[in-house]
């Protein structure tokens, strides 16, 4: 009996290590697949700061070789015309209402209130750095069969309890994010209109010339 039990544990252990390896493998495949410039639309529902669900729509632009990501918010209205740019060293947040561009060092730029850093959604190495990821199965999505990865933040203060990421099998890239906190789903976002396209670095770093640049 004891032998049987430990045998079962051994199998579970082996399986989990196989899955653990697979997570890294999947992330590597995503990274390789997304190593050239691409753009996409991120769409779904999020919980606003007031705790009510809001329609979310944003455009995502990625220049992976340069580690530059840009997300332009379209909906909800309170985020419209705002954007976030992520560079190797800094996070820029442009606020339309104040016409300010707030530049912060990346290590200081904790994005609170939103529960996740949308500009990082296309960056698998950023995921692996911050989340303890596990493969929990496969799921069929409108875009095809996908891996289901579940990530638990490695450190407290991430602003959410867990994140589920669906990674498309035939074309390894994230297609859906489900972010939960203690109370339930805080964001359910799908990645659509994905295309590989040449992008201009200057365009990704662009901001209104009359914006006041604030360093915080």
């Amino acid at each position, binding site marked *: 009996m004891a032998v049987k039990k430990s045998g079962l544990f051994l199998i579970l252990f082996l399986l989990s290590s196989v899955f653990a390896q697979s997570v890294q493998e999947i992330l590597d495949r995503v990274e390789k697949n997304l190593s050239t410039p691409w753009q996409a639309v991120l769409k779904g529902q999020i919980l*606003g*700061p*007031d705790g009510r669900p809001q329609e979310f729509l944003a455009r995502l632009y990625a220049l992976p070789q340069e580690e530059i990501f840009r*997300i332009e*918010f379209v909906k*909800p*209205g*309170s*985020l*419209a*015309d*705002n*954007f*976030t740019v992520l560079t190797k060293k800094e*996070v820029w*947040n442009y*606020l*339309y*209402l*104040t*016409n300010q561009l*707030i530049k*912060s*060092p990346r290590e*200081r*730029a*904790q*994005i*609170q*209130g*939103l529960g996740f*850093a*949308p500009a990082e959604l296309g960056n698998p190495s950023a995921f692996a750095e911050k989340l303890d990821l596990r493969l929990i199965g496969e799921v069929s999505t409108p875009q095809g069969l996908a891996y289901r990865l579940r990530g638990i933040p490695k450190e407290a203060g991430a602003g959410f309890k867990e994140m589920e990421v669906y990674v498309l099998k035939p074309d390894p890239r994230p297609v859906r994010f489900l972010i939960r906190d203690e109370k339930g789903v805080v964001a359910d976002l799908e990645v659509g209109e994905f295309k590989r396209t040449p992008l201009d670095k200057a365009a990704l770093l662009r901001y*209104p*010339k*009359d*914006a*006041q640049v604030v*360093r*915080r």
Partner: protein
Amino acid sequence: MGLALAQGRLEAGLWLASRPGPALEGGLALGEGEVFVRLLPTRFGLGYLGSLSLGPWGFLAYGLQGEVGEGGWGGAVYGEGGVGPLLWEGRLGFRPKAAPPLFLEEGLFLRLALRLRLPFGEALGLELARNTPWRPSSFGLQPGRAAWLLEGSYALRQGALLGAGLFPWPYALLGYRDGILDFTLRLGGINRLEAGLYLGEASLFLILSYPFAGSVGAWLGDLGLEVGLKAASPLGEDRETLYAWVRYAWRWP
């Protein structure tokens, strides 16, 4: 060692007016905020600015400043925040005597401002102020405003701005901005034009008001140049005089 590596800024300037002298402003990152000093031959201010980023949702910021110098002590507190569609600012302070170019307000000064983003991208603004410049001093020194001001405005997403105010007599407000050019015109109880041209590394500013006072300024990268007439009046020593302000800003790392 820690200090040498800390993030900081220094703005060193020369103020040329009836009482010329150096003007220094410096700040050093500390925790989630910044400790700053403002130094003139006649006045010294020390303060702290704290802030919390809410990412694309906005930010919260607060600050306090204490100062000593000619005329006696002074101080100010302020709080500012933008979360989602609402932006607010509150500022309250006292200074017995203005000391341009770094301490512009005189007497009791305050500003309460609210801006609200409407569903189609327009913004509604409401402001109550006394003795406080309209814009930060990086846009040029302001002709003073000793009276109470109450102003409401409506800004379209395309850049047009309409509004009205009391100062203390009614005035109309008209403005425009498109990211490269902006202007604001107030006519009536106050007559004043502010304009800015933004060309990336270079920006140009103009302020003109009637009864006549005005200034022109430019930022060329980190170098700021400004000349004006009566622009700090009726504050401080510079009533009726011509002034120039040259400054250079460093940032590190």
